[in-house]
């Protein structure tokens, strides 16, 4: 976690220092490309894990249900927080 935070703040420092360099504003494009590559490698590491793939049939359904419910629960709770606290205050909304 500290490595991630360190890298993030280092990036913010670099970005702030060179904020007038127009080249840096293309970073959104390279971010997208990095995400694509990251997900490809993520797929690779899961696909090449034979043990995990074998278990997919056995536990895939249960895992899907748990993931789905976790996401739906979070969505509903965050919707309530957004609706009743954040939107009212207004400053976090655009």
């Amino acid at each position, binding site marked *: *976690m500290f490595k*991630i935070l360190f890298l*993030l703040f*280092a*990036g*913010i*420092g*670099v*970005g*702030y*220092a060179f*904020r007038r360099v127009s080249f*840096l504003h293309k*970073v959104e494009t*390279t*971010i*997208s490309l*990095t*995400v*694509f*590559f*990251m*997900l*490809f*490698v*993520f*797929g*690779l*590491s*899961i*696909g*090449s894990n034979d043990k*995990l793939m074998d278990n*997919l049939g056995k*536990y895939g359904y*249960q*895992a899907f*249900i*748990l*993931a*789905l*419910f*976790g*996401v739906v*629960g*979070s*969505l509903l*709770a*965050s*919707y*309530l*927080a*957004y*609706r009743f606290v*954040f*939107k009212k205050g207004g*400053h*976090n*909304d*655009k």
Partner: protein
Amino acid sequence: MTSSVIVLLLFALGGVAGMCHFIPQHWLSSNLPMTILSVLIFQVGISIGSNKNLKEMIRGVSLKMLLVPLSTIAGTLAFSVLASLLISQWGMADCLAVGSGFAYYSLSSVLITEMKEASVGIQVATELGTLALLANIIREMMSLLGAPIFSRFFGKLAPISAAGINSMDVLLPMITRCSGKHMVPLAILHGIILELTVPFLVSFFCKM
């Protein structure tokens, strides 16, 4: 939306290539995923730092932001209880332990396997650990692919909450795009708080 499709295709392509063992194994063991993540985070940092509204963004940090990780925890746990009603093989506490991973698949699966071993034996503990790994990987994929839809129907906080831990790293570019750059401090805080909560909640539910 188009980028979600590309992400899914590349992920599937990677998965197939991995299954066929096209790629030498040492590529993956050499910390490649962590390196890519580091490069990504550094770039996200640059994009935040060079943003004209940086100062406003910092000023926007407030106490009520803590409400978002709390919502994520409450929503996930409440719905994990519901999920446990559909899954007969595991008890409610087991489902809560899996849900408490908040998409942190690496840590939660290892923790669950270790903590459950003493009470149910290595076989069952490994099975629950595998389930935690799969469920939390799927949560990561869902939050990545669904982010544009979530923000449209459930508000700007939704992509952050759905992402769990990953709101501070893997999902950060997606959250920036779907919810706006002003959500970045919140997304990071959310990730940090959840990351600190995972070990506590997982061990609590494993001992229940």
